[in-house]
């Protein structure tokens, strides 16, 4: 059983299943870990993934390759936004400090956001967006399937709704990755470049820490490493059909789960939170 990362581990080296030794890059020496109730942290992590994705997908509106795809991306964004809102509301209730979905979304800082760094990566071109979505969808399907059995009824309910949407999302992203990988030489080049560029962010989803351990012990959460085999099977299957190479990279950029993000998140939040920070206390 590979050792899971603890929240204070920095430059760890560990085995990821039977494949290889990888280097995990996370918060550096001296960076404190986030103090938060594990149940709240667990929910915020999943909420933030979906909120950040929704924000990214919304950027495609009026910029898509065609009208049908504009609608598709907008709808997928709306799905992620819906899941985020459900999880944020639930997290606020569990926390019991009176924070609602907007308090949590609009008033937390870039060090308090707990999404996977993969989610905050820019849209780039359509290939990069589809690569990001494929990597997320292939993880969210088994994630929501497992969480549908959570002993926490609210989380199970959210997961049961989310899994239906995630299957639809996976169909969409997988179809596009195949189409672009096995399309023209230009689309193949762009698709391969996108896969190469984002691969380093995909490992974070399968690292576990004490928050995950605590939630698993309570029967509420799911073991992250458990999801990797299914993710890998889905992704390698799609890449193969798309005539693309899975990168051989022994580096994982992690840290998002601990509030240690890439430089993109700050800008995303600045835009998203602008109104509430400029007009404090107002109702909209």
């Amino acid at each position, binding site marked *: 059983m590979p050792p899971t990362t603890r929240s204070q581990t920095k430059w760890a080296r560990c085995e990821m299943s039977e494949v290889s030794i990888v280097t995990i890059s996370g918060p550096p020496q001296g960076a404190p870990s986030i103090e938060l109730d594990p149940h709240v942290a667990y929910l915020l992590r999943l909420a933030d993934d979906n909120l950040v994705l929704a924000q990214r997908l919304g950027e495609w509106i009026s910029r898509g390759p*065609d009208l*049908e795809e504009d*609608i*598709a991306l907008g*709808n997928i964004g709306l799905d992620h936004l819906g899941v985020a809102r459900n999880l944020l509301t639930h997290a606020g209730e569990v926390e019991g400090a009176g924070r609602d979905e907007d308090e949590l979304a609009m008033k937390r800082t870039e060090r308090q956001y707990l999404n996977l760094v993969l989610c905050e990566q820019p849209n780039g071109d359509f290939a990069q967006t589809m690569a990001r979505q494929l990597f997320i969808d292939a993880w969210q399907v088994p994630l929501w399937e497992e969480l549908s059995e959570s002993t926490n009824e609210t989380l199970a309910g959210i997961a049961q709704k989310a899994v*239906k949407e995630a299957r639809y999302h996976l*169909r*969409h992203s997988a*179809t596009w990755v195949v*189409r672009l990988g096995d399309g023209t030489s230009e689309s193949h080049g762009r698709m391969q470049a996108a896969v190469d560029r984002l691969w380093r962010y995909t490992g974070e989803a399968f690292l576990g820490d004490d928050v995950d351990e605590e939630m698993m012990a309570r029967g509420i959460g799911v073991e992250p490493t458990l999801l990797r085999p299914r993710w890998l099977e889905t992704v390698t299957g799609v890449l193969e059909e798309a005539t693309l190479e899975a990168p051989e990279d022994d580096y994982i950029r992690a840290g998002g789960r601990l509030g240690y993000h890439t430089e993109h998140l700050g800008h995303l939040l600045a835009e998203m939170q602008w109104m509430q920070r400029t007009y404090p206390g107002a109702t909209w």
Partner: protein
Amino acid sequence: MTYDVPDTGEEFLTESDAAEGYPLWEVFVRQRRGLSHVHSGSLHAPDAETALQAARDVYTRRQEGASIWVVPSTSISAFEPEAALDFYEASGKEYRHATYYQIPDEVGQM
């Protein structure tokens, strides 16, 4: 949204250099069990899989339980009613219509 866009007097052009795009598909939707598929409109897509996904987004607004058919527009053969004047012999075939027959009331609905 509807807007009146005034004619500025420019020559209307139907010619353009637009390249060939995605083919056109006709969409048929059965909203729920018990109904039949109804023609809902059309859309452009490169293949059937995308056409189905797009039809689900556009013509059912992601409704669960809606059944969708997509057909390449070029696959549809059509018959138009104005051709009926040539197609049918209109006289002498009334026996094909149920109202021709008198059924006594005692027999009930038929």
